[in-house]
């Protein structure tokens, strides 16, 4: 039997988190809705950022939600993949930049 902690159907139930703590849940969704409204950035730009961040936090629900959202917004495959590469570049860069710490340690420890 195929069973995972992640269930695709759970994405549809996201709104139900307000049932156990309405005040905080409502505040979250109000905030969330405001964040993604057109502002200094367009809705399209915010969705592309969200897609990239979804990959960074490795949230399958977010990846599905923002892939669907970007398809609706008419964004093409190349643009979506470039957003994912931004994530990959930052994540790999974040690992590599710690190499300086390693170099510092090595330089400190060696004669």
């Amino acid at each position, binding site marked *: 039997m195929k069973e995972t902690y992640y269930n695709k159907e759970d994405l549809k139930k996201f709104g139900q988190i307000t049932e156990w703590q309405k005040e905080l849940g409502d505040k979250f969704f109000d905030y969330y809705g405001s964040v993604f409204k057109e502002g200094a950035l367009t*809705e*399209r730009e915010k969705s592309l950022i969200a897609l990239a961040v979804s990959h960074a936090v490795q949230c399958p629900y977010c990846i599905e939600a923002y892939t669907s959202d970007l*398809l*609706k*917004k*008419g964004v*093409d495959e*190349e643009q979506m993949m470039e957003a994912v590469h931004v994530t990959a570049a930052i994540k790999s860069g974040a690992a590599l930049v710690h190499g300086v710490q390693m170099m510092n340690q090595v330089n400190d420890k060696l004669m």
Partner: protein
Amino acid sequence: MLKSLKKQNHKLSSPEGQIEVLDDAEAINIPAFKDKISDIGLLPLKPTSIEIFQVNVGKMCNQVCAHCHVDAGPDRKEIMTQETMQQCLDAIRDTDIKTVDLTGGAPEMNPSFRWFVEELSAMGKQVIVRCNLTIILANPKYNDLPEFFKKHNVNVVSSLPYFTAKRTDAQRGDGVFDKSIKALQMLNAVGYGKKGTGLKLDLVYNPAGAFLPGDQGTLLDQFTKKLLEYDIEFNELFAITNLPVSRFLEYLVKTEKYEDYMNELVNAFNPMAAQGVMCRNTLSVSWDGYLYDCDFNQMLELKVNAPSHIQEFDIDALTKREIILNQHCYGCTAGAGSSCGGTTA
């Protein structure tokens, strides 16, 4: 090339087969569309007026698009006769209907297409042609269509599902994108889509899959920018939702996306969009002269609640009729709404 559902003897090629799937709302746990319309006080749904006379002059087409709600293709032989066209002309001559919207299949493949356009133009009607673009290049006899359209000031409305070859070709067939770009350049060359010419070239975007179209204005910005890379200009972009009818319904059922898609449509139900659905100002005529509330009801053979053949055209009865609704109507009321002229709200 793909065969039409009809050629395949597919169950969903028949209106009865499609309605059987659509009518089973309980199986996918969605409300009846009529109840939704009743909830917002619009039942019975009535026309506001009849402004657009849409004529499907035949199901023959040079393309076999994966989402086609007409199930059109080269193997479809249904074609409107000149006699039926004459009946259409006689019916609308002394009415306030100002716009005649010609569709198909590829309407240009009807042997009497040019005669019909000339007669409508002479009558002072504004003619819209739903041109699939590739027809202009399909055969030398169609190469002069841009000049013909220009001569009669036809409003050309062309499907271009997307501004990349991958998504366009996946929906409409290999090579369609490149041919469409060439055809758009030919239309631009005679003045279509250019400022100051008055020659209108509009594009139709519909999603290449089981999702809703996004904001029409945002899509217009992207199409404008991307098509300028090919030196193409156009006027409007109409964002249209794919309705669960014919080949798109078959795609949804086959890929097990039907339930999710219908739920998405229901969840996106917009009362404002419902106010402006196209069946309230449009009448649709089939290749064999029958009258329908819209092109989709035509494909499901849900004839108007009034004398239903062009020979018995009765504008008063048609203006007072009750529009026939079914579950596919959710497609026109989702989000910003959908009609042949794009969003409705």
